[in-house]
């Protein structure tokens, strides 16, 4: 376990509602990531952060925003959830820095109905 806690682990929400997923790390690593996992696509990067208040978009960022006001917390918000955002969301950290191995949380299964 890499000291990453994701919450909630499961959530069902209605189309059009905002949803926030939380990723908490215990070791103050600089690089944090949000991925989504869908069958046949592997994991795709949504957003990432390289420090407090330093974030950038990944390859599938539309409809998502992030915030990082503290080193240990990285929040992912679905501004208005859609059925296409039904997925499993993984948070990850890279303790050795950019372009090094990432360690993943246990995931959050989100269902948008």
């Amino acid at each position: 376990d890499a000291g990453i806690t994701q919450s909630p682990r499961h959530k069902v929400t209605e189309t059009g509602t905002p949803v926030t997923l939380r990723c908490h790390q215990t070791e103050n690593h600089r690089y944090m990531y949000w991925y989504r996992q869908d069958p046949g696509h592997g994991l795709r990067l949504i957003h990432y952060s390289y420090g407090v208040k330093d974030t950038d978009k990944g390859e599938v960022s539309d409809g998502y925003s992030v915030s990082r006001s503290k080193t240990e917390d990285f929040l992912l918000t679905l501004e208005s959830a859609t059925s296409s955002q039904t997925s499993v969301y993984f948070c990850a950290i890279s303790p050795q820095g950019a372009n090094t191995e990432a360690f993943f949380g246990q995931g959050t299964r989100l269902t948008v109905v």
Partner: protein
Amino acid sequence: AQSVTQLDSHVSVSEGTPVLLRCNYSSSYSPSLFWYVQHPNKGLQLLLKYTSAATLVKGINGFEAEFKKSETSFHLTKPSAHMSDAAEYFCVVSGGNDYKLSFGAGTTVTVRA
């Protein structure tokens, strides 16, 4: 830009026989390469990594992978499959200035008794 192609979406082997999972990569930079494993309803676990040292990399649980620059490949092997190896495996490449890990679509391994 970087990308990964996992050549088999599904591999089925008998217990005790060798496992081969094929991965080709594309990268504009000297890449770092990783293999991750994901057991059902679990997070991702790092199996092994290549970061420009020895081209034959040994990982956990008896897995190893060989980096072949001339073939742009990073195939994962194990001499003797165990029932516990049944899982999904992801080949991952990183490198460059975008702080991003790029995932293959995954290979599902089934182990027959």
